[in-house]
């Protein structure tokens, strides 16, 4: 019994979550750059895919990421009012408000799908965010293969 518990704990520690981040070019990508130039530290579990604007991010991107093995997805862009394209992030915000409900209903809850505003000045926020998400996903464990979103061959 005790042995099993130890094994589970070891497995959890060994589990390296795979996190895909879809970010806009103007704010969050630049915020991540600032985290770098400030030499902040965050876990190496995130892979950033750059888009011009959160407005470009199709829900299909998220489904594809989960299907292919991501344990969590982060979508991040400019704060409201700061969008380089004036309103792309407002459009995105609406889209996510609805899409997250759908994914939550089908079993991908708020421990796996994250949304944030990170400006070009918020390097610290980006680093903290990635650290926090990694922690949360590690606690939640891998998105199991039986999840309907997963590819099962």
């Amino acid at each position: 019994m005790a042995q099993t518990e130890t094994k589970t704990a070891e497995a959890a520690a060994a589990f390296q979550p795979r996190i895909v981040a879809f970010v806009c070019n103007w704010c969050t990508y630049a915020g991540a750059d600032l985290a770098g130039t400030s030499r902040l530290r965050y876990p190496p579990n995130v892979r950033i895919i750059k888009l011009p604007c959160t407005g470009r991010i199709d829900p299909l991107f998220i489904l594809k990421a989960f299907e292919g093995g991501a344990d969590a997805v982060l979508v991040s862009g400019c704060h409201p009012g700061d969008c380089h394209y004036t309103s792309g992030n407002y459009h995105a915000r609406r889209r996510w408000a609805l899409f997250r409900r759908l994914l939550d209903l089908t079993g991908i809850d708020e421990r796996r799908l994250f949304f944030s505003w990170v400006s070009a000045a918020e390097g610290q926020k980006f680093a903290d965010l990635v650290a926090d998400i990694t922690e949360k996903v590690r606690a939640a464990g891998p998105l199991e293969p039986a999840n309907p979103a997963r590819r099962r061959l």
Partner: protein
Amino acid sequence: MARIGVFICHCGENIARTVDCAAVAAAAAKMPGVVHSADYKYMCSDPGQQMIRQAIAEKKLTGAVVGACSPRMHEPTFRRAAAEAGLNPYLLEMANLREHCSWVHEDRAAATAKAIDLVRVMVEKVKRNRSLYPIRVPIEPTALVVGGGIAGIQAALDIAGGGKKVILVERGPSIGGHMARLSETFPTLDCSQCILTPRMVEAASHPNITLMTYSEVEAVEGFVGNFQVTIRRKAKYVDWSKCTGCGDCWAKCPARKIPSEFDARLGARTAIYRPFPQAVPNKPVIDREHCIMLTKGKCGACAKACQRGAVNFKDQDELVKVKVGAVVLATGFDLWDHSAYGEYGAGKFADVIDGFQFERLASASGPTGGEIRRPSDGQVPRTVVFIQCCGSRDEKVGKAYCSKICCMYTAKHGMLYKHKVHDGRAIVFYMDIRAAGKGYEEFIRRAVEADGVEYVRGRVSRIYRRTDGKLIVRGADTLAGRAVTVEADMVVLADAVVPRSGGEKLAQLFGVGYDTDGFYSEAHPKLRPVETAAAGVFLAGACQSPKDIPDSVAQASAAAAKVLGLFARPELEREPVVARVNENTCVHCRACIQACPYGAVEDHEIRDRKGHLVRTVARVNEGLCQGCGTCVAICRSGCIDLEGFTDEQVFSEIATLE
């Protein structure tokens, strides 16, 4: 078949310290499609760039990935290098191994693994890149300035001074705007006319400026560099080519009691009139609503008086089409109508006036010749109350915002009054004094200390008129903590600044956004304050937000600089990151058209050879598209794609991370 080159930069120690660059290059070499892989100490240095150029030429690369710093840093550098070697610059992508990897991680193995992932993603993306070419749009180097107030005049003069043609359109019969109506200006008390009229004359006589007064914008087509604007030249009923501006006509006009707009209804004008003696152009128009000949068919006194035969009652509006490359909107402001304040008499008391009326009373060219005489009986008021924030900072009845200029002009009014009526009392009710500007705080202090203007901090709750004609002003002195009642002879309300009427329609014509109050929206509140969401349309003056003269002039010059910058080249070169519609599959649900922040997606009718409409689809106007991709994600059937960030590219990036 793809032939991709991968170039891994050590960035000195910056990347190499945490990422095993050689291992990354070795892993990249095994990636499908990669025919060349190398690492080097400083890829951005001249020898580094030379490595890239050489590999492109020797290995006949079809694409390249540079694993180095952030693309925000050196993407232009490496893309230029690729172009020099004959590779389309858009076939080179960067993997961010420094800011997003080596600088933020410590574990060498994990960082190296991540770096390999980042390179792999970019290799897969770049295989799907297409050669792109900057979009070139020819520019018509003529600017349209809408609004002939000080902002419009300044913008026009600056653009004309830069050697480009300007068409200056003004709705009224003369340029000059509100500034021509002012008596003196804060904080220096310069005579407004004295500093403005030379500018007006200069604008009218400048060889590069075409003045179109008594005209309005009717329709707009096209986009940045290529606007076709239709301007309605309203019928003036006076042939200005014959008119000498002698004044015989208005001397004879029998319709003499029309309230003068210029004098804020305190004076009268005739039906054939020039708005003020210093008007530019200094020639009259006939106001068709009040002309006896045009309304009743009988009169013609002005035509008889005119020795040049310039009066033409058969004149018609004329639509003129002009081609311009850029537009400056400088439509200015109005004062909010304080009749919404029932507690201040709902606009029914003749001696409760607005700021412009006071300006005209104080102006030497005004209806009283510069003497402060109240409208009801022409008496000199002994006590004048000034109330600030009338309609400003009042969400309930008026406007939520601060109108910015009122603190200053109210202090000026108090001063001017005291200068003219030495023993009179000027009492200002205020909420706060906002005097942030060069010499502004000093000006307020001067009003209080040198001129004895009395300031009471508090709101006025009620104004009523006693039968003896006194205006009883009741308010609070919140510093003394007591109620105050003043028996005043005249009250001046500092009404909120609101955008000029009809501004929303004009904004819609140009695709410019506006806020709930009707002020035009700038493209970015901090970094693009004179641009709008509509490329090639710029803002100057109070149409964007309440502004005083120095701010309006500064913004006008900024807008002119933007226009001259745009006109500095014969062609507009734009990033080819634009959206494209697959017209074969588009069903025209119009979601993209409604969503586009730039109005760049348009209805497009597909017609057969005989001209019959086959169907309507969405089409992206490349001149307007800024490449955000919002339409792409909104299209349900995937009929729109974004160059540089195509579905195929993004799909392969995500798929590569499996």
